[in-house]
């Protein structure tokens, strides 16, 4: 969507960006209190709204956080990265530079291996076909 084309849409996107400062505070509080259920809900909501407003890096990191929570992975890197992404986004620009951050690549690798592991587990849990006679 072309956000710059319509002044109302442009203003709405900037307002959303400004609201990310509050979300950063919410994230930091959830991390500090170890509220994993709250973090899961926070990440899920953020994925949908950030990607809709085309803050794709923020949405991608929030999605990695969802994945890390689902697979019970270490959250330190991904929450740190998301907190930074939220701070950087408040001026209205998606922080694409974080895509080159080594933490981002590491988090993506963890998510990828978790996905592969869960696929293997589900194929192991499939009932085996009886041998054909």
């Amino acid at each position, binding site marked *: 969507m072309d956000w710059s084309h319509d002044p109302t849409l442009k203003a709405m996107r900037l307002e959303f960006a400004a609201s990310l400062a509050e979300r950063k505070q919410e994230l930091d509080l959830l991390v500090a209190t170890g509220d994993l259920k709250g973090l899961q809900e926070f990440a899920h909501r953020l994925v949908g*709204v950030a990607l809709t407003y085309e803050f794709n890096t923020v949405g991608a990191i929030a999605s990695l956080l969802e994945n890390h929570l689902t697979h019970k992975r270490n959250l330190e890197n991904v929450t740190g990265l998301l907190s930074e992404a939220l701070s950087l986004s408040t001026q209205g620009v998606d922080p694409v530079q974080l895509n080159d951050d080594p933490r981002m690549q590491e988090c993506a690798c963890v998510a990828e291996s978790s996905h592969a592991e869960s696929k293997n587990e589900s194929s192991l849990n499939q009932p085996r076909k009886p041998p054909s006679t």
Partner: protein
Amino acid sequence: MAEDEEHIAQLVVFKLTKEGFGVTVARNGGEAVQFLHLKNWSVIILDIMMPICDGWEVLKTIRRQKSLSKTPVLMLSAKRPEQVPKEELHLGTEHYLSKPFDPSELSAKIKQMVGE
């Protein structure tokens, strides 16, 4: 429309109002249930993950009521349809839109649902 995410609701209201629709927003599932009989709704849009009661619970309430059983419902979620349990998809909605969505895609879907 029932949506607890304020910025999503704003975007939908802006787009649909521009297209000539009137939109009422409920901020959670409980409010959505209270609003069900306020008007004769043409379409109901339900976010799935909402406080008080989720979109599936609201949909069950809608489908239990004769006067609303034929009202088209669009489910909106950050989950992709294949991630949603099948029994929930069979609650009586064939309309599903995943977040992120383009507001134009949403308004096209609503027009299709109201038969424009």
